[in-house]
């Protein structure tokens, strides 16, 4: 991207304008995500920077909204903060319960999506797979079909089989979220299987390994980075999903996005911003993990960055 020495003045001007434009677009991409972080520490219940905040005066900042996340819904929020206070928070605080539900739903839907998705991706990446194109299109379609259509379909389907009477908590939401996460697992795992050297499996078989051993000792280590990124994608999809939960989730199945949705629709309070901040930090952590995995995968498969 370096400018050659013989560039004309006009080209130089354009080059720097171009860089400025790009910087502004990057700002457009990232600023909305970062702006909530300082605002969540606002001591006032406003959504803008107060004068004290701009002067970096510590009295303009506070942790009160994070505190509200803990105490909201507790039976006795004003008691001294000892073990029983924390037990109360763990059992009764709305946001903590929502987080528990989100993690449980996310875990099981990720498990289903990852296991089924990985096995299917192994089949799909075989050259002899019949009807590959059609099947792939069906398996990716949950990503494309508008979420409102999925949610209304599931609403009628679950009420026609009365799934809530089966006695398995979260079942409807878990199955729906697994469906929504599957395309991501398929995409990431098939991507790691592209250019997979099938002579490795043949060599393993030649040396006497049965198919299960071949999979466990030869294929799995190579595709593992893809599987983990797919699983993380599936987890994030579930962790972020609100429409299906609104349509098919029971009243006690409050998740973090559902709490946020209700909070935004009714009276948006800075407590929402502190949740948003926590979620941004989680997504930074996940992104870092996926990036590291991708590099590891490239190294394993011998694709080194040039």
């Amino acid at each position: 991207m370096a400018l050659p020495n013989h560039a004309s003045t006009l080209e130089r001007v354009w080059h720097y304008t171009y860089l400025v434009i790009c910087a502004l677009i990057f700002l457009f991409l990232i600023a909305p995500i970062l702006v909530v972080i300082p605002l969540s520490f606002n001591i006032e219940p406003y959504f803008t920077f107060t004068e004290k905040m701009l002067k970096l005066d510590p009295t303009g900042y506070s942790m009160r909204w994070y505190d509200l996340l803990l105490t909201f819904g507790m039976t006795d929020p004003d008691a001294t903060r000892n073990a029983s206070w924390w037990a109360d928070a763990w059992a009764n605080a709305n946001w903590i319960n929502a987080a528990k539900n989100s993690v449980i739903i996310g875990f099981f839907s990720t498990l289903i999506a990852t296991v089924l998705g990985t096995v299917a991706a192994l089949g799909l990446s075989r050259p002899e797979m019949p009807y590959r194109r059609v099947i792939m299109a069906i398996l990716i379609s949950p990503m494309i079909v508008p979420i409102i259509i999925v949610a209304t379909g599931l609403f009628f389907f679950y009420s026609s089989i009365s799934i809530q009477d089966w006695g398995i908590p979260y079942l409807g939401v878990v199955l729906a979220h697994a469906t929504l996460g599957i395309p991501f697992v398929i995409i990431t795992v098939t991507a790691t299987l592209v250019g997979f050297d099938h002579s490795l499996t043949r060599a393993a078989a030649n040396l006497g390994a049965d198919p299960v051993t071949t999979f466990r000792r030869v294929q799995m280590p190579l595709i593992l980075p893809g599987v983990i990124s797919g699983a993380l994608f599936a987890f994030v999809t579930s962790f972020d999903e609100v429409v299906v939960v609104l349509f098919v989730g029971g009243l006690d199945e409050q998740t973090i996005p559902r709490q946020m949705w209700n909070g935004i629709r009714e009276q948006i309070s800075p407590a929402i911003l502190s949740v948003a901040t926590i979620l941004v930090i989680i997504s930074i952590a996940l992104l870092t993990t996926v990036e590291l995995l991708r590099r590891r995968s490239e190294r394993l498969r011998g694709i080194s960055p040039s």
Partner: protein
Amino acid sequence: MTDATANGAPAKLTTADGKPLKAALASAQSHARRRAFFLVLPLLAFIVITFVAPIGQMLHRSFHNDGFTMHEDIGSGVRTPIMTNLKAWFDANPAGTEPTEEAFAALAADMVVLRELKAPGQAGTRINYELSGSRSMFTKAARKANDLEAPFKDAFLDLDKDWNNPDLWRVMRDASSAYTFNFYLAALDLTRNADGSIEQVNENRQVYVTLFSRTLLLSILITVLTFMLGYPIAHLLATLPLRYSNLLMILVLLPFWTSLLVRTTSWMVLLQSQGVVNDSLVGMGLLDDENRLQMMYNQMGTVIAMTHILLPFMVLPLYSVMRPINPSYVRAARSLGATSWTAFRRIYFPQTVPGIGAGALLVFILAVGYYITPALVGGADGQLISNLIAFHMQKSLNWSLAAALAALLLGGILILYWLYDRLIGIDNLKLG
């Protein structure tokens, strides 16, 4: 080999255990195909049960509504046919027949049944979808069902003179069969007039076509905006050395990984009238305190927030097409005398067209079905078709109309999806 050419047919080649080679190969291949298929089968079954079947079942509602023909008791689940006498009269008389005394007698007999089943509300609601105001006529008539006496026509007209409305009788005739395409007509702002021919509804009641075209226009606008913002940064990322571009890529991927609700909330914080953008503009003196910009709860809010949210879906396909482009082509063009603009226009840009197609189709497909962001920042005029489906699901409870709208939306999206698969191939979908 000479043998084969002499006879005109090849000699049979066999495997070591004596099987013909062709058969052995075919059986080995079909074995491999079966094995691959069995790996995919569990997932395929799962998707069909939890995804394809529910959507199919929902779409069935768009042309099947038995609200006027069948009553299901909520407690016991017993299903009883209703309006049977009226249906018999409709079957015996062709469409357009004036309702006779006989027809009103059938209606009165059906009202007695409705009253016993406590179902007049349900039957009236089905008629009310197509002729508003008729639900109360049913509940009122059913309430007085046992007092109705011959002549029935006069008895009904005493209750409400609208019982003689030819539109009502046409709608009841349509609804007496559970299968109907009237919900599709309604979803396209069409209606049937008294003689059954199709016409447009009154101009000030044409909501759906307006909303479909608004959804289409806003999605095109958002696609164009993501392209205009995405192309420069994809180009920058593709031409920088990997060390730097990987770092900058994080700025594209972080929004991609951040919760949709978080990003929508951030835009609400930024755009509201007491928000960061307005405050900065006022603070810089560019704006009077009274004339704060209204950037949220309108189309502008929807467009800004959705452009931001969908931008990574444009940048990633563009980047993956631009990265492998060999820079020496542009250099060759320059050395042959092209200006940098000509070199870009004639050499570089044509090579990126597949990426533009992939990104634009993906962004457009996702934008058309968007629900969450318009619902939160769209206000009244920034709503898209998905929001209307949700409205009919949750508020007006006209599920068949919601299903018909969903079917139209889904049909459009599947065509685009098919196009995407044809042109780009789903295998080439990449996520960072």
